[in-house]
């Protein structure tokens, strides 16, 4: 090791590691799937309501130890996307669907969908699998049937 390199290793600031970049094609091929443990229902209007269990915090948690159920009602577009998160549509398929259904620009559709999925992921409502559920079942990579709501 050269002296300047050694010095910089000793005294230099550690560079923040850049997050690994993922190829766009890989992302478009991912399949979003709803968390099977999540309770949700579809109204006649087409809107989807997701029932989330929230743990009480602070003083309320001392008084009432039970859990609180919270209902999240998705808007028309959010519900439409939620219905497509059945493990049979890839990210790319859903983008195509939004472009066709809502006449969105492709870039706008990709961006808004990515940010929506990010929110759903953070809340633990969806997850991504590497291929379509039916294909994975055929390959024997998924054994259990996901419960239908």
């Amino acid at each position: 090791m050269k002296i300047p390199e050694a010095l910089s290793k000793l005294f230099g600031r550690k560079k923040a590691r850049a997050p690994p970049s993922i190829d766009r094609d890989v992302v478009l091929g991912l399949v979003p799937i709803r968390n099977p443990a999540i309770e949700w229902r579809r109204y006649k209007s087409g809107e989807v309501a997701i029932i989330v269990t929230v743990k009480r915090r602070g003083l309320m948690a001392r008084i009432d130890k039970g859990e609180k159920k919270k209902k999240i009602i998705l808007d028309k577009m959010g519900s439409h996307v939620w219905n497509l998160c059945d493990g049979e549509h890839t990210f790319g398929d859903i983008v195509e669907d939004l472009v066709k259904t809502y006449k969105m620009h492709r870039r706008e559709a990709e961006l808004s969908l990515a940010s929506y999925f990010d929110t759903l992921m953070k809340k633990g409502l969806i997850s991504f699998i590497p291929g379509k559920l039916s294909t994975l079942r055929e390959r024997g990579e998924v054994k259990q049937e996901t419960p239908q709501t």
Partner: protein
Amino acid sequence: MVFKTFGWNGFELKVPKDWDMSIDRGGFDKGYIRLDGLKFPRLEVSWEQYKEDKVKPLNDIVEAAKKHLRKKDKNVRFIGKDRSIRIYRHPAKRIRWRIDGDEGYLIIWYCDKSQRLYRLQIFFKQDEYWSFKNVITEILKSFKCHVGGNLYTWTALDFTLKLPKIFRLEHRIYKVGKIALLFESKDSAIFINRIGMANVVLSEKYDDDLRKLLEEEHLPDIRKRFKIPKFKRVRRFSDERHEGFIMTTSYKSGIFMPKEFFVKTRVWTCEPSNKIYAVTMVIRKGSEAEKMRSRLERLLFSICP
């Protein structure tokens, strides 16, 4: 490959249809834009105004650019000799660089008509060079660094408009589903709003009331800059594909020597594109005002596809 015309801040070029602007900085005198393809960045254009006698020789600029590239990445390699080419009849220098599997063309030239120094960069993968070559040729062949006539083209995503050269882009908002552009000249201003997913936005947020949308989405942005009062006259209009309102008013600005401005807003839904367009013109009243108003109306009220 299908190409489209892209115009911004006084220049025009042809790019593949799926390339769109992803970064836009600066203004008319000095600026930068980047166009991305579906997978990665494809094109960069930066421009800066210089008087002809202040511009350094092209060779010096190219050397400085090479030095900058070397500083940025030690692995950069320059392929072949620097070539002298012509862009829209101006002498230009072209260098080709390679960093691992990525390649790029850097072209630098000075346009004496617009008094701007241009720096154009095109990116491609090493293995796609031969399939990509016709795209590079088309871009270089079609690049107009100074545009003739009286109009400039402005392209933002799927939205293109032509405006008189006196207008400069002063403010822009790019959000998912919304593009807002404010152009200003000495005596007039144009504010354009394009809102996507019209059927969802209108029904879910504004109870299908276009005027409510106008009050909450379009006018607040303009009222930050102009003292637009309530509209005095409102007229409804509709044709086969469009439905909306035309609203007019006027206001005075200034205490000692007040200037009078005429304001016209047209808001409409375009069913085929599922978009809402709102256009507001603010024109100072005067001898040329009527001519300008009718010219802008012709250009702006038919912007939707």
